[in-house]
Structure formats: C-alpha cells, structure tokens
C-alpha cells in the first residue's frame, strides 16, 4: 500500500497537493445535506401540525323571521318562552348582565354557575322542550350572547332560539 502511494509524492509534488486538498476539505462537516434534511423535517412538522385556530361549532336553530315583529303575549302562559335578556357590561369576558323575564327564575349571574342555575330552573319550572329565547340588547357582544346560549344548552334546554336585538333598557 505504501509502495503504491509513494511514487506520486516523489514525482509530482503539485499533483499530490491537488489530490490531498479536497480530502482535507471534506474533513470539515458538510452542512448542506444536513440543512436540507432539517428543512424537510421542519416543513413536515409545519404541515403535520395544525396552526389554524381550533374551531368548533355550536349547533343552533335559526331564528324565526316573524320573531322580530311578533310581540310575546304575556298572558299566554303555557307557550310563553323563557326570555333571557343579555347585555354587555364591559369588554371583558363574562362581564355581562343577564335577566330572565320569569320572576320564578332566580337571579342569574354570569360565570361557571350559570349553567347550573339554569339547569335548576329547568328542573323545577319547565319541561326540557320549553322554548328559550335569547334576547340580547343592542350592542351586546357576540361572545356574551354565545356564553348564555352555551349555558342554556348545557342546562338541558333543547329549543333555544335567538331573538332580534332589542333596545337597551
């Protein structure tokens, strides 16, 4: 082996240098394929992960068109829906006022207990298919409206609809 390598070193000094230079250069870590692979991995995980905000859907009945014109008759007790009036108090989450038109329903406070309070009202006063109308006053934030809707759903009401935006009281 040493016999084979010896002649070029002896005869051609310039050639020997040319042969050895690339060899010594390849001793340093070749970054290019590594970067390629790293980029591909990065892109794979970018694709694999879901960057989009996780969206979920609350199924809701569409509002009846006539509800905006038709006034609710206060003397028609059996069919009278429970109207939940919502109004935003500030821009913060869960900072809104909530009132039920039925005096038998106790005070309702926004927060984790809201669903339980509505559930209690449902148990003692109503059938599950009793109609609930969510009636936000003008300017109520969508977030607060949905919070009430979600609480009513969680309480077990099955017929919930959205009323027309009412005048602020």
């Amino acid at each position, binding site marked *: 082996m040493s016999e084979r390598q010896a002649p070029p070193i002896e005869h051609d000094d310039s050639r020997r240098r040319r042969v050895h230079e690339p060899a010594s250069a390849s001793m340093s870590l070749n970054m290019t394929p590594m970067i390629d692979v790293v980029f591909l991995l990065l892109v794979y995980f970018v694709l694999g992960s879901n960057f*989009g905000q996780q969206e*979920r859907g609350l*199924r*809701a009945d*569409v*509002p009846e*068109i006539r509800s905006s014109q038709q006034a609710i008759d206060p003397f028609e007790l059996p069919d009278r829906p429970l109207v939940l009036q919502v109004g935003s108090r500030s821009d913060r989450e869960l900072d809104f006022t909530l009132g039920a038109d039925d005096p038998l329903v106790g005070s309702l406070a926004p927060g984790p207990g809201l669903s339980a309070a509505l559930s209690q009202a449902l148990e003692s006063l109503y059938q599950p298919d009793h109609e609930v109308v969510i009636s936000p006053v003008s300017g109520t934030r*969508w977030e607060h409206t949905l919070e009430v*809707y979600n*609480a009513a759903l969680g309480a077990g009401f099955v017929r919930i609809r959205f009323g027309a935006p009412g005048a602020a009281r």
Partner: protein
Amino acid sequence: MRRASRTGPRGRSFVNLTPMIDVVFQLIIFFMLVAQFSSQQAIDLVLPSLTESGADLLDSEGRAVINVVPAPSTALEGGSYRLGTLAFDGSPDGVRRLSSTLGDLLRRDPQVRVLVRADRTEAYERVHPALQAATLAGAQDVDLVVSSLSVGEATR
C-alpha cells in the same frame, strides 16, 4: 499540463442533481401549503371562547361559512358579510342577496352545513342578520363557530 488541468474541471462538470431535487421538493411543498391555505377562505377573527363549551368538532367538507367581517375591515373586505369569496354589505338588500346565494347553495346540496363565524367582540345586531339570512335561505340549523379554547385561555 494545461490540457490536463482542463480535463479536470470538465470531468466534474456534470449537473449536480441533489440541490435541484432539494429545491424542487421545497417548491412542491411550498405550493401544497399555499393551496391548503387558500381553500380555507376564512378571515382572521378571534372567535368567542366559552366556559364548559359543549361545541362539536366541525367537518372540513360540505360547509358554507358566513363570516361576519369586523367593522374596521369592512371597507377592505368589501362588505359586512362574506360567503366564501363573495362579499355582501350589511344593508337589508345585501342580506337578501346573501340569503339568496346561500339558498342556491343549499338547493344544490342540502347536506351543506351553514357555519356562522363572528369575532368575539362583534355586536349581536351585526350577527343577527347573518342568522336571519340562513333562515331565509332555508337552512334547518346553523353551526355557530367558537374557539376550542375555554374562557381565559384565549386571551392569556
């Protein structure tokens, strides 16, 4: 000697395919990504987050999304409501056009789910016409889009 030094570079002058393949792969992936993003047609909204939400996961197919465009960007988007790439203004006429477009869509495919996306800060009176448009279009029910994060998580 000069001839020999010429053959050296000529020997190496084949096209190096490796970087080209790398670049082509990157381009393919880039266009795949872009195609996926453009099909979402969703405008950037902060969706409402709820306490103990009972919301379901949404199917990615067969849905018509009504976006309620936030008031500051209505001029940019060309209207108060958007259905896919179509924009509708907030006037009664615009809402009527929205519902007739949605109605055509539902007649063609009654399985289409109607989704209503609105920002958490949106006023209810701007969302209500979108719900009414769905009623007029003949939708049985709608899906109100909410964040999967519960209250407090989104703003943190």
